[in-house]
């Protein structure tokens, strides 16, 4: 089946070479980081996690988003997702692969990463995150590949795979819950210390994951003969739209609790993210334009996605999905992690700006994710089109 990835149009090869070149440049950046240390990044004593960990957090959501396809198809027997469910599973594989790479990129001593296994520590949420992420990666590789291979052979998938598929559903919830627990169990970081963090993570995941999938599906519709189908498309709009609304509802709850209670610690980070934090003469606000854009883009995206369905416009659908995806990428891939460090526990304000090398490594990991995704999708789509022809 894998041989399908080695045959493709010029466009396919150009795309793959493009990704490889980004991976090459990022690889060089990583060599620099490996030799110098993490000081090459923009992180500091006060802001100890930067864009690596925030990308990791966001991508766990993208991976968990696959659940929104697996659940209707396998539990509710929703046949319209028959063509798209494999895309969801394969996207989860690529997203988890990126998550693991971002964690490794963030380690001060990457050669010691296996210490997490050698000295298992159940009281650490990072230990559990390691287990759920690797477990989810395994489940998706297994389920995706076995089901696709059965289709390739023209038979129904074997019965033994069903328990694994069912297991992958709560497992998807667990990856984002445990990832939220990394943050929301820390005393003294008010912005993260909220019981609604895991639900909010899940809501944004169930919007951002399917939104990315929808964008890719539309690209495939244009460039290949692969069409996920109108019914699946319309159903996904409902899922993305409502999940995105839920995310904003949760965000609103955070605002209410902070500003109605007037507890300074609860307001500080929201002040910093959305209005800027004054500290003596200076005002620190480098994330404000991003966070405001996130809210505007997210709300606009929600409105437009329902318009796109009413008008049956694929163009508008892509635009609205892009708006929602970028909005949630800013919200979680920037604001959530970076905001938690401002102000510091001693109430100093230190801002973070990623370095060039850091951005290079980040781009390379995204490129690697898309490289894996392209191979998997190439195989899946070739098999699907071959069987239908």
């Amino acid at each position, binding site marked *: 089946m894998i041989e399908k990835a080695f045959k493709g149009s010029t466009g396919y090869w150009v795309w793959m070479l493009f990704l490889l070149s980004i991976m090459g440049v990022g690889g060089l950046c990583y060599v620099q980081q490996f030799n110098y240390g993490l000081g090459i990044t923009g992180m500091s004593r006060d802001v100890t996690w930067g864009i690596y960990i925030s990308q990791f957090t966001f991508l766990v959501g993208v991976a968990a988003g696959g659940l929104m396809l697996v659940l209707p198809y396998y539990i509710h027997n929703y046949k319209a997702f028959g063509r798209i469910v494999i895309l969801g599973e394969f996207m989860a594989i690529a997203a988890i692969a990126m998550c693991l790479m971002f964690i490794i990129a963030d380690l*001060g001593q990457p050669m010691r990463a296996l210490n997490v296994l050698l000295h298992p520590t159940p009281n650490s949420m990072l230990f559990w995150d390691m287990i759920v992420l690797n477990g989810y990666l395994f489940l998706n590789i297994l389920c995706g590949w076995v089901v696709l291979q059965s289709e390739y052979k023209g038979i129904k998938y074997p019965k033994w795979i069903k328990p694994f598929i069912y297991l992958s559903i709560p497992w998807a919830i667990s990856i984002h819950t445990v990832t939220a627990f990394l943050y929301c169990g820390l005393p003294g970081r008010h912005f993260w210390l909220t019981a609604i963090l895991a639900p909010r993570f899940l809501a944004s995941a169930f919007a951002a994951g399917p939104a990315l999938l929808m964008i890719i599906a539309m690209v495939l519709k244009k460039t290949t003969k692969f069409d996920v189908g109108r019914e699946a498309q319309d159903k996904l709009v409902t899922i993305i739209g409502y999940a995105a609304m839920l995310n904003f509802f949760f965000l609103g709850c955070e605002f209410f609790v902070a500003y109605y209670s007037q507890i300074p610690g609860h307001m500080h980070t929201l002040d910093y993210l959305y209005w800027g934090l004054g500290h003596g003469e200076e005002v620190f606000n480098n994330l404000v334009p991003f966070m405001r854009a996130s809210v505007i883009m997210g709300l606009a995206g929600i409105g437009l996605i329902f318009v796109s369905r009413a008008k049956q416009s694929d163009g508008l659908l892509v635009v609205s999905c892009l708006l929602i995806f970028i909005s949630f990428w800013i919200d979680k891939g920037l604001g959530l992690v970076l905001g938690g460090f401002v102000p510091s526990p001693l109430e100093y304000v230190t801002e973070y700006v990623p370095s060039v090398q850091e951005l290079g490594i980040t781009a390379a990991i995204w490129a690697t994710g898309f490289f894996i995704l392209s191979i998997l999708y190439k195989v899946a789509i070739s098999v699907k089109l071959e069987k239908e022809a």
Partner: protein
Amino acid sequence: MDSKRRDFLKIAGLTAIAGIAAPSAFNTLLKGEAIASAGQAAAGGHGAAAPTGKRYGMVIDVKKFTENSGLAEQCVSVCHTIHNVPDFGNRKDEIKWIWIESYEHTFPTESQYKRPDALKDMPILTLCNHCDNPPCVRACPTKATYKKKDGIVGMDYHRCIGCRFCMAACPYGARSFNWRDPRGKDANGQPFIKAENPKYPTRMRGVVEKCNFCTERLAIGQIPACVEVAAQTKAIVFGDMNDPESEISQVLKTSFTIQRNPAIGTHPSLFYII
């Protein structure tokens, strides 16, 4: 008794057992670090601490540092010298085990309103609180940071993978990370560690470090370096808080002290007389 009722009672019984067992199971998960005993819960759980065994603690009398100008700086310098703490000359890469902080930053959750003017320039020594319920130890995925039986929160520089979860977890900003090689030299060829002390290991790039209450000195019967520096003025009192006869127990019994952010349940072993 019909079978439905028996089933119901069985389920009710099992639920009750599960309900009773759940907290202890949860404590096992936290490895006894969040001991939520009934006695502490009654007291609000903010100030209580493990009552048995040795527990080292420290009382810092801030006024004595104002009276003896330069003393705080001396404490910092001695600590950093004997522990081979590098000086990178910038805030971003900074590593510090003990440092001088203002009142407003050390106690940001205390009221800052209409405080005596004297507080403004008070040099307050700030270091690891060696919490009895340390969030950093809970967060560490490799047990590279751990709590010893004497209450000291230690670091294993050889096991640390540099994930910096402990730094996110520490509510006191007490931890530093080796963003670059501390054994290296700056652009002018000056080593970051001015004079290396062979009695204490230097660290490598990519690991976290912090104050260790001079555990290496305690092991050979010495007191912590900062305490020794301040010995004449008694500005810092160090000892076993669980020994009722110890000097620190007497000080804690007779003086009003405060801890940094006690509301979050970390049970710090550091006390301040302001």
